[in-house]
């Protein structure tokens, strides 16, 4: 019996929490005054955001010429950041939808923050297609609407138009999903918060939630259905983004491998970002018990897998180019690896393919410090992946007479910094005012692996959640 028990999985939630304890501990994150650490982070993030706003304001007042682009390289930082952020978004949907459908219990402690991250990432991503326009004030022209021009519709053949739809859909679904998952917790907040203003607010958003079993039943159904709806998005959105490039005629862009390659890359970078965030969050918000090394370990395995896929894609690109006997194709890839932007290419390879291999070692997977470092490197690497795909394909394309170099200006860097600022500002506010961890779901998971000996048994029988009439 005992030895059988040893085979049982280790618990997801450490410290043998009781439901009530869970509630109080997680609520504490929203109720206790912000730690100096939080304030420090917030100030930094907000400073970055301010820098971003300043550079965008200057961009709008002066023109896209304030970026380092030229007649040959029409996209660089702008679209790189766009693809990067969209990619980040993916992990959220993956964790919340797919892992939910696959009944991965460990997701419960991270899905809330992952979904929040998705929302913020998509916001950051959405900004770039707008500000990169020559005439951003006309951005709405990209949507089809009845007009007096004949009427004149949009070009449904253009991947950019598809993007517009894909991203708005993605944003709306993620938002709904996130909000829906939060309703029970909002109710809990409503019932616990002392401030009457906040109670009003929470009351409004919890849509009059009463934890009755009927409510729970319907809630679970809706959640399940929405998860089903959201799942295709994980694949579709980045596929469409990849078509921005795949449907073009530019060597290095014009390739059929892009959709799977981009989706894998997206999940890769997304997971890395989730790790970065939760590792910080669990420290700052003192949630070590809820986000345990086991969670981190699980996500690291994801990294390992997707890193493998990405690496394979890198290799395949070269193979196709070599196999195609196409002089332009071959040149582009040689130029990536050995040309003027080779440094970027090798950063990408090292950070995305070589370094993640360290995660084969359990010990590294279990050390938050190591994982934190790796996840950050991966994010850097994935940013460079997009940069390399976009810039090296453009800067030396068909006619040598057009070949140029691209150098970013301060304004562009400012915009990139600003997007990070926006992202972290939002995330920190989220940590401060909303439950970082889905209480209701975690409570469902505290039992997990309790049968393992050496884990303290709870005094009282666990209920799903305190029921409020």
């Amino acid at each position, binding site marked *: 019996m005992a030895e059988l028990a040893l085979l049982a999985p280790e618990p997801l939630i450490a410290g043998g929490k009781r439901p009530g304890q869970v509630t109080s501990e997680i609520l504490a994150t929203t109720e206790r005054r912000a730690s100096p650490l939080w304030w420090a982070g917030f100030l930094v993030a907000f400073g970055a955001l301010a820098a971003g706003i300043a550079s965008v304001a200057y961009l709008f007042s002066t023109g896209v010429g304030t970026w380092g682009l030229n007649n040959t390289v029409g996209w660089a930082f702008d679209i790189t950041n766009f693809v990067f952020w969209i990619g980040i978004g993916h992990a959220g949907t993956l964790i919340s939808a797919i892992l939910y459908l696959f009944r991965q219990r460990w997701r419960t402690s991270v899905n809330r923050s992952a979904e929040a991250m998705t929302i913020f990432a998509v916001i950051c991503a959405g900004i770039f297609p707008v500000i990169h326009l020559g005439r951003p004030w006309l951005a709405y022209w990209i949507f089809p609407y009845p*007009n*007096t021009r*004949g*009427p004149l519709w949009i070009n449904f053949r253009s991947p950019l138009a598809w993007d517009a739809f894909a991203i708005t859909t993605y944003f709306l679904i993620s938002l709904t999903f996130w909000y829906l998952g939060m309703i029970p917790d909002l109710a809990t907040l409503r019932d616990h918060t002392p401030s009457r203003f906040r109670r009003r607010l929470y009351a409004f958003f919890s849509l009059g939630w009463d934890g009755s079993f009927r409510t729970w039943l319907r809630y679970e159904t809706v959640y399940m259905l929405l998860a089903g709806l959201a799942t295709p998005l994980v694949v579709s959105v980045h596929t469409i983004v990849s078509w921005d490039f795949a449907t073009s005629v530019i060597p290095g862009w014009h390739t059929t491998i892009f959709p799977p390659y981009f989706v894998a890359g997206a999940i890769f970078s997304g997971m890395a970002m989730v790790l970065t965030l939760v590792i910080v969050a669990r420290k700052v918000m003192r949630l070590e018990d809820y986000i345990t090394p086991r969670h981190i370990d699980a996500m690291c395995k994801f990294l390992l897998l997707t890193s493998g896929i990405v690496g394979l894609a890198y290799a395949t690109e070269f193979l196709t180019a070599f196999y195609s006997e196409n002089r332009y194709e071959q040149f582009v890839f040689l130029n990536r690896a050995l040309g003027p932007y080779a440094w970027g290419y090798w950063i990408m390879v090292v950070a995305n393919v070589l370094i993640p291999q360290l995660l084969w070692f359990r010990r590294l997977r279990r050390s938050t410090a190591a994982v934190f470092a790796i996840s950050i490197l991966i994010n850097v690497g994935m940013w460079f992946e997009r940069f390399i795909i976009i810039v090296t394909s453009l800067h030396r394309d068909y006619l040598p007479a057009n070949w140029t170099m691209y150098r970013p200006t301060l304004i562009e860097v400012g915009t990139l910094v600003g997007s990070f600022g926006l992202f972290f500002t939002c995330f920190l506010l989220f940590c401060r005012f909303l439950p970082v961890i889905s209480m209701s779901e975690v409570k469902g998971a505290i039992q997990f692996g309790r049968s393992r000996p050496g884990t303290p048994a709870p005094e009282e029988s666990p209920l799903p959640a305190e029921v409020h009439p």
Partner: protein
Amino acid sequence: MASRLTAILLALASAYSLLLLRPKIGSFRLPGNQQGYEPVQPIAYSHRLHAGELQIPCLYCHFSAERSRHAGIPAASICMNCHRFVTAPLGALRAEDALASKEKRAPRLIVSPELQKLYDALALNEKREPDPSRRPRPIAWVRVYRLPDFVYFDHRAHVNAGVACQQCHGPVETMERVRQVSDLSMGWCVNCHRQANQAGINGRQVHASTDCAACHF
């Protein structure tokens, strides 16, 4: 229960306000739509009188419409073709003549105030001969029909294709003061082109291009 009442009231109220808004909605025009613009002109020139009553053909004054992209506002010298002699409404002149013959005297010269402006512009003296002491100054008419700078419109093409002036400018011969009749929106242009391609212009087959570069370059 309370919520249901709220819903009903909301619905009623919005329906009611839509009812009140109807006239406004009916007359709502998009930004930049100048339809109905009817500015006051420096000289109260009446198209109703000239084109309507007197039946002067449009192309007599706007002759460049046949040969240029602009229909052109006629030069003052073209007004003088008639108004060298006609200095006031015919009625007034006839009345004066009648009065003069009754009073056995030479008819007095009557100059309508509006035409006086024309003579002033040309710096003519009362005998309507050039007056060296004064400087002629051109008449600044107010443009009624205006297209944005990024649109190329050519009267030549339309006039020679047999499009009637009224097609776009409306019944000018009935207007005292010219009013912008059509809204000049792109849809308005394109639809007319499409119809012309199908139905032709007064029976004749025409090719009215619907390429962007027909107007935008």
